[in-house]
């Protein structure tokens, strides 16, 4: 019932979304503008051809109709005309191909980059590894479940928001090394005109040089399974100084995390923290209520793993399960997160085993 009401509410809210964007984003890089101009050039050429062809066609439809007494003529061939309308389009095509090839060559610029970031697609999140800075994190969709299921109103960045955005410096050449962990994904930021397939076992590259700081949003563009629509890309472009500060912060945070994992946690602390981890990392397959999806993803509630020996439970989360969609989470989650989510799964979602595991004993 509440669902129906919010649904009705969202119907009324519709005009507030009004965004009748009909054209490609011009983007924020020299290359994206070049592509945009190319797109507009081809578009206008098509419009011109369309006006000419449909002009003649509609003229014929209005002029040469039987009801107006038109009598059909008998000619049905004209070699000259046919040659002309083969040659002219060919010339137009060459005129299109020249700037297109030039743009393509700009895209394949292989000069050295200032920052190299490895982008890895996972079902259904992105991982960003800064090669030289040693920064490594996952980027998950952060839109609350309630907004997706229409229980609460949707925020303006609905489905285009993540917990940890990719951060890059402005005015620097940033090179992306794109690959995937499981199936093929595709990393796309429309404002950068960067779209590259992430292929498991193979590496692709792309690059960007953004002039203005800002937040730019994109999505995965290759069908990659159930939550393909729920793995956005968010890139925060910072000024050089802010970027340097962010890098320093990240490094400091990493040290702090290491200290945190040796602390003793209480059951309540772990369960509370675990709920957040569960909703970010597990909910996609095992579902909010822990029931899983029969035939595809097993339930947590009452499962032999979540109610059995705790070290087996930890092991499956840390190392994954071969041959299934269950990933190894040791790279994705900190020791604290793993301890928390294990404890949460054992003491919530309908389970009540009553034990807990401390981060300090998680063997990664």
């Amino acid at each position, binding site marked *: 019932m509440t669902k129906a009401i919010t649904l009705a509410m969202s119907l009324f809210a519709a005009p507030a979304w009004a965004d009748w964007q009909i054209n490609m984003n011009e983007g924020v890089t020299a290359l994206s503008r070049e592509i945009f101009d190319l797109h507009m050039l081809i578009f206008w050429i098509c419009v011109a051809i369309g006006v000419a062809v449909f002009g003649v066609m509609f003229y014929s439809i209005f002029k040469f109709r039987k009801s107006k007494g038109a009598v059909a003529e008998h000619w049905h061939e004209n070699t000259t005309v046919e040659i002309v309308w083969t040659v002219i389009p060919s010339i137009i095509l060459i005129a299109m191909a020249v700037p297109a090839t030039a743009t393509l060559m700009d895209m*394949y610029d*292989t*000069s*050295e*980059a200032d920052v*190299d970031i*490895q982008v*890895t697609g*996972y*079902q259904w999140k992105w991982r960003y*590894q800064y*090669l*030289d800075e040693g920064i490594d994190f996952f980027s998950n969709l952060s839109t609350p479940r309630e907004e997706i299921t229409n229980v609460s109103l949707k925020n303006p960045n609905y489905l285009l928001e993540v917990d940890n955005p990719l951060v890059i410096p402005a005015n620097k050449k940033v*090179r992306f*090394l794109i*690959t995937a*962990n*499981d199936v093929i994904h595709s990393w796309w930021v429309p404002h950068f005109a960067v779209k590259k397939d992430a292929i*498991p*076992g*193979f*590496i*692709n*590259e792309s690059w960007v040089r953004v002039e203005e700081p800002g937040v730019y949003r994109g999505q995965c563009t290759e069908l990659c399974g159930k939550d393909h629509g729920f793995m956005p890309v968010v890139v925060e472009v910072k000024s050089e100084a802010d970027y340097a500060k962010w890098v320093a912060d990240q490094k400091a945070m990493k040290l702090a995390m290491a200290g945190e994992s040796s602390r003793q946690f209480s059951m309540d602390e772990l369960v509370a923290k675990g709920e957040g981890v569960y909703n970010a990392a597990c909910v996609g397959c095992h579902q909010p209520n822990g029931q899983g999806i029969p035939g595809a993803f097993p339930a947590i509630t009452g499962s032999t793993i979540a109610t059995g020996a705790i070290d087996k439970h930890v092991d499956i989360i*840390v*190392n*994954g*399960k*071969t*041959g*299934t*969609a*269950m*990933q*190894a989470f*040791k*790279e994705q989650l900190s020791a604290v997160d793993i301890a928390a989510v294990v404890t949460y799964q054992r003491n919530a979602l309908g389970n009540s085993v009553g034990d807990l595991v401390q981060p300090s004993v998680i*063997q*990664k």
Partner: protein
Amino acid sequence: MAQQDQKQTKRLALRLATAAVAMFGFGFALVPLYDVFCDITGLNGKNFSQGPTVSAVSVDTSRTVKVQFVTVNPADMPWDFRPSVRSMRVFPGEDKQTTFYAKNPTAQWMVAQAVPSVTPAEAAPYLHKVNCFCFDRQPLEAGADTQMPLLFFVDPQLPKHISTITLSYALYDLTDSQKVTTASQIDDKGQVSL
């Protein structure tokens, strides 16, 4: 006329059916053809160099190339796997050695195979591996770790506009080696390791 036509039709139908069967075969022939094509063009960053095929070449000290190493653990591969150094600058033609660290954190013996990929793809034919852990499968006891060597050089013929080469390794779990034997038998292209 009917007799004659029938015969002709049968023959034509048979020919067309043969063509269809041939095209079915062609579909499979695309697999080795693709590898040959990739090998020549470096398409898709496939790097086929196997062992010391190219003898020592003169070192080009007029420029350096940045060679980066990255690793990917595919889904359900529990090993720790990372390059010992993230990148190095090399002169084209110069032999260089580096290592990759691998650890099997699980409680059972495992075998892994590293699959290389190079970007930009154009550079793939110019990265020569003299000796590489990716030539063979790598077994590791439960809990053991190792430093795996890579000896390589960049071909001095590398096009001038390429200044960075990234070599990526994806480490696959081949413990279930039954699966692998069949695979190498079926697409046997003389590539022992892959």
